[in-house]
């Protein structure tokens, strides 16, 4: 899969930030370095998927492009207890017999079971508004991937800071 130059640039900047953070393990200098590098990375951009997440994304999308939009993944910015993290997934996509959302996949990048849940839906629901509570191991991106009856794949992302590991 070919990355756009923009994606490659972001990945490179991110690895720079990680390297800088790794060189200096603690102290105010590390904070200054991090503060200096973080603004270069789009805070709305999910991290480049790791091997397992990439495999899950490929499976749920069937290789079709995953576009960002139409999905609202509402999660707290900070989850103090990783054992109970609320999730609300909504979309403005139609839910009619002709055109509907047939699946919603919830993926938590750094969890032991990254493909946390799948919700298979029908037009009888009238709307997509699913809420539940999940466990999170550590600070990471969460992805909600929607598949429509016409084969489009839409995604919404959310980054959650986890204070207490909820996975053991």
């Amino acid at each position, binding site marked *: 899969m070919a990355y756009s130059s923009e994606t490659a640039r972001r990945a490179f900047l991110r690895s720079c930030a990680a390297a800088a953070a790794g060189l200096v393990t603690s102290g105010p200098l590390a904070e200054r370095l991090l503060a200096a590098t973080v603004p270069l990375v789009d805070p709305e951009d999910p991290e480049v998927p790791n091997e397992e997440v990439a495999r899950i994304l490929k499976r749920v999308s069937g290789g079709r492009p995953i576009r960002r939009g139409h999905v609202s993944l509402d999660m707290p910015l900070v989850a103090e207890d990783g*054992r*109970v*993290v609320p999730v609300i997934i909504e979309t403005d996509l139609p839910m009619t017999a002709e055109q509907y959302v047939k699946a919603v996949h919830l993926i*938590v990048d750094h*969890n*032991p*079971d990254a*493909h*946390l*849940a*799948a*919700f*298979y*839906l*029908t037009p*009888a*629901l*009238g*709307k*997509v*508004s*699913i*809420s*539940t*509570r*999940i*466990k999170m191991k550590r600070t990471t991106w969460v992805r909600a991937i929607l598949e429509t009856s016409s084969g489009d794949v839409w995604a919404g992302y959310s980054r959650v800071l986890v204070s207490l590991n*909820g*996975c*053991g």
Partner: protein
Amino acid sequence: MMTLKIGEARIKVPDRINRGDLITVNSIVSHPMDTGFFRDAEGDTIPAYFIKQVVVTYGGAEVARFEWTSGVSRDPVVSFTLKAEREAPLTMVWTDNKGAAFKQSVNISFAST
């Protein structure tokens, strides 16, 4: 929910429903949702024990199906919308990874006015 025994479930729908309403269905089932990563006080692994599937039927027709892992929190809650188009039972069946199935139903009936 802690005092309930495993598999006890509740489904909540609005008290007053009119035909065609988009209603919110709230559900909860009592289950430990053990991941298999934790150990007990003796140091023995607590085996994975979780709800892996939820099937929702409305008037006998399957309207939704959820596939879960142990990543869903203890005593799983899930809420979703439903288009109340006919008076019929709404049934949910939670099945865990040991094969036990837990069932709960509510009747969707319309306000008489």
